């Protein structure tokens, strides 16, 4: 199973995880990461914009790279676009694999690339208006681990 998508509407990560599990009976393990909009900290809304010609093709190429690098039985990468609210899921990455380390590392690999090497732009709405979120130094350092 391979499911790589951009989603304009809210989604339920648990149903995708269930499908991956059902579709990967030969995989001994599934690792997953769910990114959510933080509650508290004054964030009222979060908006993710993308660039159609690049964003999904870039995620597909990332999935190819993950499947080449790790031994996987299945890979799910779902990423929201549009406006989200505190508690909403932003991203789900899940990998099924015969052995745990491939599953765990594939999820880590995909998330590091989605954070700072995929074509998304994020801004947060606070009491005083919208603020663009710049990538952090730590995000670039995380990405460099896979070079």
């Amino acid at each position, binding site marked *: 199973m391979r499911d790589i998508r951009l989603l304009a509407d809210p989604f339920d990560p648990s149903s995708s995880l269930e499908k991956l599990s059902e579709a990967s009976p030969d995989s001994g393990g599934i690792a997953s990461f769910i*990114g959510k909009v933080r509650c508290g900290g004054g964030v009222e809304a979060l908006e*993710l*914009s993308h*660039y159609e*010609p*690049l964003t999904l093709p870039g995620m597909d190429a990332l999935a190819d790279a993950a499947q080449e690098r790790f031994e996987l039985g299945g890979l799910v990468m779902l*990423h929201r676009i549009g406006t989200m609210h505190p508690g909403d899921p*932003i*991203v789900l990455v899940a990998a099924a694999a015969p052995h745990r380390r491939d599953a765990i590392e594939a999820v880590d690999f995909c*998330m590091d690339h*989605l*954070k*700072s*090497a*995929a*074509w*998304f*732009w*994020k*801004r947060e709405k606070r009491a005083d208006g919208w603020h*663009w*979120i*710049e*990538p952090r130094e730590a*995000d670039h350092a995380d990405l460099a681990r896979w070079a």
Partner: protein
Amino acid sequence: MAVTILFLGPLRDIAGEDSREVSAPLDWPGLLDAVSGDVAAQLKEERVNIACAGKVLADKTLLHAEDGDEVALLPPVSGG
């Protein structure tokens, strides 16, 4: 005829518009002339990329956009 310049992410706020049409062909010096000084300053930074007709340019100074092409200005990304 026209090339469409698309301002993405924070560059949209700096430009004050989503997109702009300029006459074709469009090269790097032409692009810097076509946008405001603030946007041009951003474009000169290494961390800002340019895509032409759906492909990210390895060297943005070699931009050569033809009639009908879309030139997307891509500031640093933040996903996840």
